[in-house]
């Protein structure tokens, strides 16, 4: 009997009455079915990648892709999920990078402590930047964030006694674990990046798949309706700003230690737009998209070096074509799979349905 009911539920749960449009659905079903095996293969590939690659330069680019994936995941919480477009996220990256670098250069703090400090400072600034969302929305908010990014850059440039002004911060120490320095050369930096990317991705996933994430998406879809659901709009918007700022500070700190040198121009407006482009290209409101977006947009300038300055023309053309034919981003599709219910909930539902059947 339960077998039969299970069968009915299984067939019903594949979205009844809706024709499943081809390839995308098949890919989704495939990845969902074999997600464990695919995950293991991907993990193994990522672990052995530096040995296969071997090349210092390629590895540095890979680490840079990882750092930008973290930044994109940070902005994605704010722009992709909550629907607030920020044009000044380089500001948070700068705060993270400067706080962490200055602490480790001047006070000798280790990477993890200084990064944490950078995240805390960025988080606090995130609250401050989030406060205008009480009154300002849409384009106007974007302009405020644009101003914010410039202000941070100006502070970094002019507060010479602390930030060393336009000369920047040099010789940023590499992170150490058990006294072993992690560099690109000994693959340590790569694995550190990998660990931080995984950590960030898991964190984002946990946030998104909770009432917090649902509240973010509700705010993006319809603020008025969200208010009427009892969602504290201002509170959640500020929370989105804080989460986003902290993640970007983490990415900034990682970036600073990879490159080993930062100055105010490392965090100009181009960085803000680059992060935003990654989010849009990869697929707003998806986490998977951030990796693809970062990989394409960071690797592209390196791959197309032979085109010299013309590569920026091509870069622009790609984005335009993208906007025309796939505005939702490369991996920005709505899932065609049924909403995931865990076994406990499924059992409960089956019980209710069985009772209903008996009642008939």
């Amino acid at each position: 009997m339960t077998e039969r009911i299970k069968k009915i539920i299984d067939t019903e749960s594949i979205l009844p009455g809706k024709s499943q449009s081809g390839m995308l659905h098949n890919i989704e079903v495939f990845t969902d079915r074999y997600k464990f095996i695919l995950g293991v293969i991907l993990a193994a590939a990522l672990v052995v990648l530096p040995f296969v690659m071997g090349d210092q330069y390629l590895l540095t680019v890979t680490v840079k892709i990882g750092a930008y994936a973290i930044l994109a995941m940070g902005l994605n919480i704010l722009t992709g999920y909550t629907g607030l477009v920020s044009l000044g996220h380089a500001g948070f990256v700068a705060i993270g990078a400067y706080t962490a670098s200055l602490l480790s250069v001047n006070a000798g703090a280790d990477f993890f402590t200084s990064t944490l400090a950078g995240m805390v400072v960025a988080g606090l600034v995130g609250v401050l930047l989030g406060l205008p969302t009480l009154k300002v929305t849409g384009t106007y908010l974007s302009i405020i964030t644009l101003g914010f990014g410039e202000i941070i850059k100006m502070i970094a440039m002019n507060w010479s006694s602390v930030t060393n002004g336009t000369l920047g911060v040099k010789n940023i120490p590499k992170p150490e674990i058990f006294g072993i320095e992690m560099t690109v050369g000994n693959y340590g930096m790569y694995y550190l990046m990998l660990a931080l990317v995984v950590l960030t991705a898991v964190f984002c996933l946990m946030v998104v798949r909770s009432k917090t994430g649902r509240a973010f998406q509700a705010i993006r879809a319809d603020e008025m309706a969200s208010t009427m659901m009892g969602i504290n709009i201002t509170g959640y918007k500020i929370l989105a700003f804080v989460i986003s700022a902290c993640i970007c500070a983490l990415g900034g700190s990682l970036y600073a230690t990879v490159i080993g040198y930062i100055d105010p121009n490392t965090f100009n407006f181009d960085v803000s737009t680059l992060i935003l482009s990654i989010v849009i290209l990869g697929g707003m409101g998806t986490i998977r998209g951030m990796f693809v977006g970062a990989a394409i947009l960071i690797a592209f300038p390196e791959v197309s070096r032979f085109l010299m300055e013309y590569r920026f023309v091509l870069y622009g053309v790609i984005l335009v074509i993208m906007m025309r034919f796939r505005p939702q981003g490369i991996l920005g599709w709505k899932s065609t799979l049924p909403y995931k219910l865990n076994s406990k909930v499924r059992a409960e539902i089956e019980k209710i349905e069985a009772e209903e059947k008996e009642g008939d």
Partner: protein
Amino acid sequence: MKLKKRKVIDVSKELLLEVNNITKRFGGIVAVDNVSIKVNKGEVVSIIGPNGAGKTTVFNMLTGVYEVDAGTIVFKGEEIQNKKPKHIVEAGISRTFQNIRLFSDLRVIENVLIGAHIKTDYNFFQSVFRTKKFRQQEDEKLVEVIKLLKSIGLDHRRDDYASNLPYGDQRKLEITRAIATGAELILLDEPAAGMNPQESAELMAFIRHLKNEGYTILMIEHDMSVVMNISDKIYVIDHGKPIAEGLPAEIANNPKVIEAYLGGVHNDAGDK
């Protein structure tokens, strides 16, 4: 004026919402002028009036979107005027909108889960670390939401995106989402707007079903066949002022109401 002195005779019913002489001014314009409404538990009460009469403004005051300039709103014995929307939802009032406002790029089940937001009891850190409390709460709410969808007859659409539902189901979903907040009083702002006769007949059956389930409904509606058929009581507002209240039969024959609707000298365009 005599109308106001008349006491509600039926004391067997429990008073759920009592709106006393609320007034709202926008600059020099008095959008709502001394409107009073009483809603008993389990009733379906309608507010009608020509376009621009101030009905939606009343709703916006009830839900905390607008501040009340004068008067009181008492819900379950507690004054709720000028409270934040969040507190009003928590107190047990929820609403739908004149033009459907669903979270259209989210699934049906997610829409209703967002409705259950204030009842979902865990904090941010509990969700990040996936504690026992988080899992318990999420599972519990999912089951509750699916049960609710089943009772409303939308469960077969659970996995669909809200924007893909037919119009009538979108209305139903919006009402379901309002119910999911745990509300006792549901405010419906023109639920039958844009519906064909068959759809509005279905809607009527649905509202009756809700009434039987014990929900109390206060609605704004233009479709007279709906209003006259399911209302226990009707309030008529014109130019922000209350002009009549009573049973459907009384309202249908009230000369003031007929004048407001048919013979009105003033004619405002646009709602609100």
